[in-house]
């Protein structure tokens, strides 16, 4: 049985469904690699990553972790697998129902956008096992939810409900559980309808914002803004606006 299932709910949207329900979608290296491969190989322009109604992904594989010494962790290819998700060539949305714990929460944090059903729970419970998060659960989390909330989650192992996650800005939308995936797919489809070059540049800049001093980020923004001035899609977008018709973008 494949660890992930891939489908295309619309022509340009790839849906990746984690498919190890028995293991509560535990994120082994194999699974991370499969998600990365799907994001990098497909012809889709936006992706949705989801789990099942009860579990988005509940952490790493504890049995695997239990056998690892310091040097094993150090040599583990896992950080590279995570990086591949972050450097996905296309934007991707995490559609979370149920538990997103530990590495599962970190997987969601790697997404460009998180959308959740009311049943979603986000947590970094590593501390209760004598560990700490190892894939952004301290660094990405604090940027996403702010200091106090990140501290509570990481130091006390507290979970966030979907509403709390929405209130602190971790996720962009809460829907009823039955509609989580299609809400994410609809959003993904809206992104694929935008001009691809502009989407790519804008996404790159948004992601860079976390790692760049403001002035440098503004300079980069201006450069990309200028560069896009010569695209055919920009001309089309403006012309369509004045003609009051939908734009036909071609990625040029």
């Amino acid at each position: 049985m494949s660890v992930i299932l891939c489908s295309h709910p619309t022509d340009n949207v790839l849906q990746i469904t984690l498919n190890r329900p028995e293991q509560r979608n535990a994120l082994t290296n194999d699974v991370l690699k499969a998600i990365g491969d799907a994001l990098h190989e497909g012809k889709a322009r936006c992706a949705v990553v989801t789990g099942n109604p009860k579990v988005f992904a509940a952490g790493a594989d504890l049995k695997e972790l239990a056998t690892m010494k310091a040097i094993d962790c150090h040599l583990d290819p896992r950080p590279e697998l995570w990086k591949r998700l972050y450097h996905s060539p296309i934007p991707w949305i995490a559609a979370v129902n149920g538990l997103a714990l530990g590495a599962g929460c970190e997987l969601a944090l790697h997404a460009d956008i998180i959308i959740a059903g009311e049943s979603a729970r986000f947590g970094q419970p590593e501390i209760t096992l004598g560990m700490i998060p190892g894939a952004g659960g301290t660094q990405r989390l604090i940027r996403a939810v702010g200091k106090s909330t990140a501290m509570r989650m990481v130091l006390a192992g507290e979970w966030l409900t979907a509403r709390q996650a929405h209130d602190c800005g971790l996720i962009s939308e809460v829907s009823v559980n039955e509609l989580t995936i299609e809400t994410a797919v609809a959003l993904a489809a809206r992104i694929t309808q935008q001009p691809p070059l502009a989407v790519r540049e804008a996404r790159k800049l948004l992601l860079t914002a976390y790692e760049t001093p403001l002035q440098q980020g503004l300079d980069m923004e201006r450069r990309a803004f200028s560069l896009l001035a010569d695209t055919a899609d920009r001309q089309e977008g403006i012309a369509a606006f004045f003609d009051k018709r939908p734009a036909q973008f071609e990625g040029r």
Partner: protein
Amino acid sequence: MTDSSILLDCRDGVAEITLNRPERLNSFNAEMHEALKSALVTIRRDSTIRCLLLTGAGRGFCAGQDLSDRKVAADTGPPDLGESIEQNYNPLVRSLTALEMPVICAVNGVAAGAGANIALACDIVLAAESASFVQVFCNIGLLPDSGGTWMLPNMVGLARAKGLAMLGDKLPARQAEQWGLIWRCIEDDALMSEARQMAAHLATRPTAGLAKIKRALNEGASNTLDQQLDLELQLQTVAGRSDDYREGVAAFLEKRAPQFKGS
């Protein structure tokens, strides 16, 4: 098992829970909380159950917390009432309101303190003519819990809520009905038969749809109109895909009685 503090009887889609400590007016002690919790878990997990009927044995419905219970006794130093609320009363109110089926309460006698507010947390409250609702908390230096301070002003307005909560007077069932606190006041002898008839009827109705109605109405009290419109949109989208909706429309067009499955 008549010595059990909670009786659970499931048949024909209806679960009937009877609070069964009549010698203590069905007041809550730790054991009754545990038994009620496990009964509610049983009901939640049983997909054949489509309506819950809650009532009390003997002359009272529920007198709230049993003040002689060791855990809340005030004579051996201050008790931690917060713990009991966190462990028992709040989860109980939450599970009644979250239960995805209609919950009927047949208030057979006095409903006092938490007992009153647990009754009011049910979806449809029927009360015997001789029954009454009493927010006794104010008489012992406490405030209404189990959602009372939220439900009362929402149901009868702030003025009546404050009067009830600060005076602690008995509100007879008939007046509770006139105030809109409960659905109906019924003659003592007819209470249980009417309640069971209503439960049997609701158990044949579109359960998932009723659960959505319950949810939307409960949340409406704290939502803005905008939020509520969005919630209605989402719930209706899901409801529109149900078998029961299809069956309901088909039966209507074919002029026959619908056969709902509950999903």
